[in-house]
């Protein structure tokens, strides 16, 4: 069990390295961490709902808000979506990492 059921799927080490390199104060660093945190939760929950048939949204959200840590949520998603949600969430995070690393690059 993690604090959030998808925590183990969400690792953005390179984004953290970039923030640590750019920021010198603890407050600024924490502010940026929180922004990334907000983006992650909206992206991942959006990704879950995107792949979950609409008729299950209400039940899933109810379970999620009552126990965001519960690993059964991942099983529920797999079962109702008939997809490998671990793989899908990991891909979402991979794409997000790329986006965040390119944010202030001229390559965009």
């Amino acid at each position, binding site marked *: *069990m*993690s*604090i*959030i059921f998808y*925590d*183990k799927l*969400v*690792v*953005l*080490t390179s*984004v*953290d390295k*970039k*923030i*640590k*390199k*750019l*920021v*010198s*104060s*603890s407050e*600024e*660093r*924490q*502010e*940026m*961490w*929180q*922004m*990334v*945190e*907000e*983006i*992650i*939760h*909206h*992206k991942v*929950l*959006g990704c879950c*709902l*995107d792949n979950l048939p609409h008729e299950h*949204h*209400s039940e899933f*959200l*109810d379970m999620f*808000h*009552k*126990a*965001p*840590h*519960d*690993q*059964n949520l991942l099983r529920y998603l797999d079962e109702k979506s008939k997809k490998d949600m671990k793989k899908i969430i990991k891909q979402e995070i991979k794409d997000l990492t790329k*986006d*965040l690393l390119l*944010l*202030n690059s001229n390559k965009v």
Partner: protein
Amino acid sequence: MNKTAQNTSFRDLLKLKSIETQKSFKENFPEAHQFLLEKGVELGKIRQHSAKLISAGALTGTLLLSPPTGASSLPTPSDIVHNLSETEGRDANVVPQKEFINSLRNLLPKEVRPLARDEEKRLEIVVKNILDVNAKATLEGEHLNTIYGYIGAEQHLKKYPGDILENHGPYYKEGIAPGLGAWGYFSKSKAETNSFIIETEKWYSVVQTLYLPDWNSRQPYLRDWYKYRKLLIINTVNGNAVITAIADSGPAAWTGKHFGGSPEVMDYLGGSRYKKGPVLVFFVDDPENKIKLGPVDYNDLSGKDLVQI
């Protein structure tokens, strides 16, 4: 572009990205947005919401919605004490560290996760008996979101303005953090740097105070309470244990780590190549400030059998 300009630009773009992502979620899933709003749950702060629920569940014994495998076979505190006293009389040649590793193996779940209060209590007994340290998962009512998690390597922290890496030997490889810890410099100048400060930086640790559910609402009390608070950190794989002082807040939850350790802490816990690993973290109940920071030597063999990984 200089570093400050890069920082501002990245910060602004990150803020914009955050706003756009939230807007897009609201537009694509208006019912979900409305549902969470009605329940008073802010998605950006879901971690704090979850930590609050887990903490309440742990106290009332309803934490584990899906119990971990083997939880029912956990030994009771009296079993542990009984086993320990048997061990004491059984073989004087048994290295305490080996006994400790075995006890941890029996008590800890296979996967790293927040522990229930009864699990924490059992571990406190084992730690007291073998390491002779008054270790507490909850001290003066304060409790971290988890005491069982992954620790990651941190850089040295600047002790005073102008401090450089060369003052932090012999551990140079990790480098020195460009920024300051959550409590700023340890002292105002080099002249004011004493042995307490040197030891505190040397054996510093990092915990996720920023995700505590009541971190913002209980300021400045919590900030003061956590500053340089002594922690016992135990490598659950090899049993190496070290007393540290909290000197920074972090790491970010999305790094897959829950705690951080100075180069010295990490080296003692697992050797020079140790960058991440599972640990137990307890507050040290030391009201008279008698316990020194640094390695906990609890082996009869003067630590020569410490296991390095």
